[in-house]
């Protein structure tokens, strides 16, 4: 019973729909003709109006026209998009046509028709929404599908639309309803089920993505803390904390890798402590192994634990999982570096995309005007500082603009700069030598035995390095005042120098370490020889006593062993990190907190104003802190292979410094007086990080590749080189063909061409990017010259217009005498008007949605200024009956407009 009416209804609908379609087609054709004829009708209309209407009336209509255009210009884009959204299935094909027409219409100056047509569209939309999807033919279905997809796209792109929220919500609801309504009904038979399934899955997937996003934003730590800092200190200080958080994320992943794949398996499945010599504290150290001083130095029990390289056994597979420990160790080491490279480079690329091409200085003032205010600032003091810094920057820019740089006494500045650089070089060399000297001395101490020396002598290396890192930048700061650079340039120099200092120190340290490694290896050789002697004597003694007795069991603590240089390197790095962290925290407490407390409370009883005067409160040193962080990370990368505990330590350190520095910044620092670009230097810091990453992996890779591992400690003991573990795995764990393929692939005959190919590819890419850059520069130049030409043109046009106006006035006064040639004048006039129209059109299409600039305006104004002149004239000739009142006035526009043609 219920089916039949529905069917009937459907039939009705179909009929109705067909009708509508026909109607739509008709309308479309109508419109086409309308549009075609529009131009002519318009001109005709204008002629008519000109004949009948008064001069002022025409001026008004013109004004209205331009106004409409203005409105239209701003609304055009929206309209188009809206149309795109509201369009329904049936009209799709027709609409495409319409769109084309619309474009034509829009480029011409009349848009009434287009408005009409869009209104028509909407009406038709509403009518057609009721059409049943089941009754559609395949092509129509196809269209419907397209429409649904379009709506979906609209929904997705909605958030990027500059509409008011209400409109967005309405559009969203409408299009969602539309999608809901038609989506389920799409497709027939086989395709239908699949389609429905697909739709369902995408819906589920969307929901999941949304939830995941919710979860992700909830997981980002320290969001509010950073926000608070941002509002107090602006984006540059906050950028440090964001960088710190980013570092924390990376270190978390590194920590997860080493902890999950190396430390935990070894602790759970490897042999327990005390089972073999490498896992036991030697007899000589047993007494002091638990002392705090020893543990603080990462000796004793800490040294013989999963924290360091030496503890790991070279057993190929451990536990019931048959976990390949040495292989895992090696791969984690490689993976750490690879992951870091990937992340850093990816971030750099993203930053480069975001910052775009902001290098040129062509928009100096505009950028200062529109982008210098930091919208994040929410603290009155910071805001005051910002106002002051913006003012000074404007003043500087004005000074620079007004007078080319005054180069008084250039020789003196040159001399001073050379002197400053010389001093800095001396500092760098001195610090390098100091470190080398200290490391050498510490080796001597180590040979003597550490127990005979004071605490200072034992920790000399780390302390000297930290102190140098603390005081040298201050020295550089003092030296850089000699140079008299612009602050931004000075900052870059300063950064470069600190970078060089840190790098130099690190590398001297590494070179000294290499010396030590060589020493240890010599020692190892002797010990190895001794051990064979010792074993032989042991064996001989047991054999000579009684040949049948089981071999003597020696406690693993008593077995003589080699020095294990890998653990030594790991220990050095861990100590370095610890002392570095300590110095950072202590300087923070003394330099910032204590200073702030003193300044605050001594100010009551001091002879000058401490807060405003000399010591005052400290500023947060963004660049120095970022550099410190970068170098710290470099040390982690360098040492992580020999001390798996390093990432864990670093995570701890970053976590603590996040809280400590947040607190210190909020409680004892003042906002910076001069704020520099924060974002522009973002990639600068990333580039530094990349350089450090590269430089820190170099020595690690060098040691892995060239130095044979210790014979009795670590996961690679007994192998010739550390990477032999790959070879071993290939041979024993993979089928024979695989290793064969691998050996072919690693054969130099294949590797060399491959490397060559890569080099060629790099070369090619580089040259193409270079050419792109050149093209960019060319285009920029072209644009500039065009701008200048435009400006000149406009100036000329304005001048000409003025002259024309004068002429026209003269002509108007003369026109009183020549009243007889009315007909010819009329013709010319219409000519001028048409030309004027095309003129405007040209402007309109050139500027897209903008209303016609300069020329159009100039053309609009004259009627207003002209008006009084003819009126006086008109009054004068009031009584003359022989001619129409409008004509003498119309001669003006002709005189004015005809020359205006030549401009374009």
């Amino acid at each position, binding site marked *: 019973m219920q089916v039949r009416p529905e069917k009937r209804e459907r039939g009705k609908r179909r009929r109705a729909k067909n009708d509508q379609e026909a109607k739509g087609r008709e309308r479309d054709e109508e419109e086409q003709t309308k549009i075609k004829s529009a131009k002519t009708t318009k001109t005709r209309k204008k002629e008519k109006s000109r004949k009948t209407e008064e001069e002022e009336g025409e001026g008004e209509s013109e004004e209205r026209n331009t106004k409409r255009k203005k409105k239209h210009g701003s609304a055009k884009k929206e309209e188009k998009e809206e149309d795109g959204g509201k369009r329904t299935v049936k009209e799709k094909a027709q609409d495409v046509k319409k769109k084309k027409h619309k474009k034509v219409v829009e480029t011409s100056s009349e848009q009434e028709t287009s408005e009409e047509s869009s209104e028509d569209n909407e009406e038709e939309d509403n009518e057609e929404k009721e059409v049943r999807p089941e009754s559609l033919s395949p092509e129509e279905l196809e269209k419907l599908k397209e429409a649904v997809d379009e709506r979906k796209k609209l929904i997705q792109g909605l958030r990027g639309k500059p509409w008011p929220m209400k409109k967005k919500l309405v559009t969203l609801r409408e299009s969602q309803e539309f999608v809901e309504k038609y989506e389920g009904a799409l497709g027939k038979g086989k395709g239908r089920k699949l389609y429905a399934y697909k739709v369902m899955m995408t819906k589920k997937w969307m929901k999941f993505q949304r939830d995941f996003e919710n979860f992700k934003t909830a997981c980002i730590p320290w969001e509010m803390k950073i926000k608070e800092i941002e509002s107090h200190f602006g984006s540059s200080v906050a950028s440090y904390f964001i960088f710190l958080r980013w570092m924390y994320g990376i270190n978390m992943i590194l920590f997860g890798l080493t902890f999950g794949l190396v430390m935990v398996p070894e602790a759970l499945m490897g042999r327990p402590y005390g089972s073999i010599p490498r896992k036991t504290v030697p007899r000589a150290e047993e007494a002091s192994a638990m002392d705090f001083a020893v543990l603080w130095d990462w000796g004793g029990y800490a040294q013989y634990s999963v924290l360091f390289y030496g503890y790991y056994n070279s057993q190929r597979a451990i536990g019931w999982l048959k976990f390949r420990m040495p292989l895992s160790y090696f791969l984690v080491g490689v993976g750490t570096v690879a992951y870091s490279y990937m992340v850093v480079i990816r971030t750099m690329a993203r930053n480069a995309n975001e910052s775009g091409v902001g290098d040129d200085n062509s928009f100096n003032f*505009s950028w200062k005007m529109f982008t210098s205010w930091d919208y994040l600032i929410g603290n009155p003091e910071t805001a005051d500082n910002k106002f002051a810094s913006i003012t000074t920057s404007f003043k500087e820019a004005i000074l620079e603009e007004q007078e080319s740089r005054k180069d008084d006494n250039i020789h003196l500045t040159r001399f001073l700069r050379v002197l400053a650089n010389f001093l800095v070089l001396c500092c760098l060399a001195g610090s390098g030598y100091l470190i080398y000297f200290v490391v050498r001395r510490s080796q001597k101490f180590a040979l003597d035995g550490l127990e005979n020396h004071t605490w200072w002598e034992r920790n000399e290396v780390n302390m000297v390095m930290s102190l140098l890192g603390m005081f040298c930048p201050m020295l550089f700061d003092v030296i850089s005042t000699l140079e008299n650079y612009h602050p931004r340039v000075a900052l870059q120099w300063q950064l470069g120098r600190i970078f060089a200092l840190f790098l130099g120190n690190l590398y001297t340290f590494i070179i000294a370490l290499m010396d030590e490694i060589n020493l240890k290896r010599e020692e190892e050789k002797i010990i190895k020889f001794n051990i064979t002697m010792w074993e032989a004597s042991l064996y001989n003694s047991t054999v000579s006593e009684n040949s049948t007795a089981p071999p003597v069991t020696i406690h693993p603590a008593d077995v003589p062993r080699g020095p294990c240089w890998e653990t030594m390197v790991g220990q050095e790095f861990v100590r370095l990190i610890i002392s570095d962290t300590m110095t950072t925290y202590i300087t923070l407490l003394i330099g910032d907190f204590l200073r702030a407390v003193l300044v605050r409370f001594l100010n009551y009883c001091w002879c000058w104003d401490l807060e405003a005067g000399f010591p005052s409160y400290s500023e947060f040193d963004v660049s120095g802190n970022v550099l410190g962080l970068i170098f710290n990370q470099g040390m982690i990368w360098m040492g992580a292979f020999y001390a798996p505990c390093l990432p864990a330590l670093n995570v701890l350190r970053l976590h603590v410094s996040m809280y400590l520095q947040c607190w210190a910044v909020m409680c004892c620092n003042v906002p910076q007086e001069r704020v520099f670009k924060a974002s522009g230097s973002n990639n600068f810091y990333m580039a530094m990080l990349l350089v450090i990453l590269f430089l820190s992996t170099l020595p690690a890779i060098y040691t892995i590749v060239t130095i044979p591992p210790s014979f009795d400690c670590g996961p690679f003991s007994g192998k010739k080189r550390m990477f032999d573990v790959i070879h071993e795995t290939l041979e024993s764990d993979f089928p024979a063909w695989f290793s064969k393929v691998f050996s072919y692939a690693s054969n130099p005959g294949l590797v060399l061409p491959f490397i060559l190919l890569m080099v060629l590819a790099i070369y090619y890419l580089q040259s193409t990017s270079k050419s792109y850059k050149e093209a960019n520069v060319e285009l920029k130049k072209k644009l500039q010259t065009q701008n200048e030409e435009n400006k000149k043109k406009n100036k000329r046009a304005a001048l000409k217009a003025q002259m024309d106006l004068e002429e026209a006035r003269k002509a108007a006064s003369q026109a009183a005498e020549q009243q007889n040639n009315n007909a010819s004048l009329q013709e010319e006039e219409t000519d001028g008007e048409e030309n004027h129209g095309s003129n405007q059109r040209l402007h309109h299409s050139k500027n897209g949605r903008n209303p016609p600039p300069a020329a159009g305006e100039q053309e609009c104004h004259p009627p207003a200024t002209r008006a009084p002149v003819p009126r006086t004239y008109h009054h004068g000739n009031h009584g003359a009956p022989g001619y129409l009142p409008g004509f003498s006035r119309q001669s003006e526009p002709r005189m004015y407009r005809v020359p205006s043609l030549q401009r374009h």
Partner: protein
Amino acid sequence: MVVATCILAMSVVRQRLHDFMRMIQPDEKWDCTFFTRKEILRLHGRYHELAPHLVPMDYTNDPDCKLPLALIVNMPELKENPFRNRIVESFSEDGMGNLSFNEFVDMFSVLSEMAPRELKAIYAFKIYDFNVDNYLCKEDLEKTLNKLTKEELTPEEVELVCEKTIEEADLDGDNKLSYADFENMISRAPDFLSTFHIRI
């Protein structure tokens, strides 16, 4: 018994939370803004905080309530901003600075970190266009500059800077900046994205 009451209480709480979520339609707003559900709820909290007696917690039947400019401008995020009035005005429908919650969310969505450069540029243009004529003319620039520097530049300096700015950015030579000029200029500005955002 205890367990049963606990479960009951939990379900009631969940129901109420769910109702609340539905009230301000965070999911719908998600499609229109760059915020996640949590952030929209937080925004609603902030909005409610501004005028607890005016703004209802209950948004089921879409109440038509608007907060005046004076209230919104006093938010700590906007308080120090020299352009605060313009920001609020350019996001309000009536141009007078009265914001409904929808517009409020829209404002912070555009100013959020996730919004694309094009969208931000459109609204930045609106903000700097003091006399809403779709052009940044000299008058607008002077006002902008005076707000930026707290009127510490001399009139000659202001004049010079405005002239220079127009000279740099004006492509079509009409002595004022249209949106196309502004967009061309701002799309290359290195600092625009990092400074034109407010974290809420």
